[in-house]
């Protein structure tokens, strides 16, 4: 079948030109750069080694998820729990019921007067003389403290006070 055997023999006698030493050096440099950057390469002469390769995308995603979790966790920690807030919002700290709440005791109270409005003279029931009615808007802040744990609770609420001032006869 093979009437080309003589030709094939002649062809095999042809020797491809040898590779220039420069090419070897260039490949050496390229592979060395690879080895420095990514670890040494093998092309199957040695068995492949399973090596750890850092997945930067996965690492970044993981860090972002961790950061998000920490931020949310921090927000939740800072936020007062609903049960505590509702229990302490009772505006009667000095009552026995309040005292029963884990020994929180009133420690401070402030009143801020925003304004006082003179609403003029008014006759009230059972009085013969008119009285001047003054309406004051205030904000009261009451603070409780638990001496055992050091925890504190502060409640602030607006108030409105109406005062009747008798008019002195002139």
């Amino acid at each position, binding site marked *: 079948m093979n009437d080309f055997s003589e030709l094939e023999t002649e*062809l095999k006698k042809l020797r491809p030109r040898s590779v220039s030493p420069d090419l070897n050096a260039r490949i050496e440099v390229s592979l060395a750069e690879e080895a420095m950057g990514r670890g040494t390469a093998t092309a199957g002469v040695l068995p492949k080694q399973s090596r750890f390769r850092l997945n930067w995308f996965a690492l970044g995603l993981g860090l972002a998820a961790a950061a998000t979790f920490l931020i949310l966790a921090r927000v939740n920690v800072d936020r007062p729990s609903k049960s505590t807030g509702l229990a302490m919002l009772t505006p009667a700290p000095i009552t026995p019921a309040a005292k029963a709440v884990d020994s929180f005791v009133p420690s401070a109270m402030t009143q801020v007067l925003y304004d006082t409005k003179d609403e003029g003279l008014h006759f009230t029931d059972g009085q013969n003389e008119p009285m001047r009615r003054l309406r004051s808007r205030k904000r009261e802040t009451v603070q409780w403290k638990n001496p055992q744990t050091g925890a504190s609770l502060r409640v602030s609420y607006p108030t409105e006070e109406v005062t009747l001032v008798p008019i002195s006869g002139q």
Partner: protein
Amino acid sequence: MEDVVTHEEDWKSCFAELGPGLVLFARQFVRSIADAEDIVQDAFVRFWRKQHSVNDKGLLYATVRSVALDLLRRDARRARREASASADMEQTTEPQFDFDDGSQRALAAAIDLLPVEQREVLVMKIWNELTFAEIASALAISQNTAASRYRYALAALKKNFVVHE
């Protein structure tokens, strides 16, 4: 670091064996040794760093071919020059072989006259000793096609070689 040295010796011995054949194969796409060596450098480094088996010669030659074609595609002007060189090969081509006598020179000239599809099969078969299965794998063709191209190449070569003799 010891591993680096060991692997360095590996690629060197591997390339010492395969290098000339790879450059000869690359030369079928470009007409200068410098370009062919550039292609082989790029392809060999790419192949080696992906840790392919050197026994997979089909893939190695496919890598060289791919790099060569990429090079030609990237530079259209260069591609035109290469095409023009293919048409007028004997005037511009650097010798691919070391010659012992005029007969070998004539045989090499006859090889240059072959179409590139036949030349690449011939080069892989004769000087790189690839099987038709490996050639088919490298060129993404069937084994039958690879074998036919080889036979056509030999037939044309015989005809041209006789003429040049």
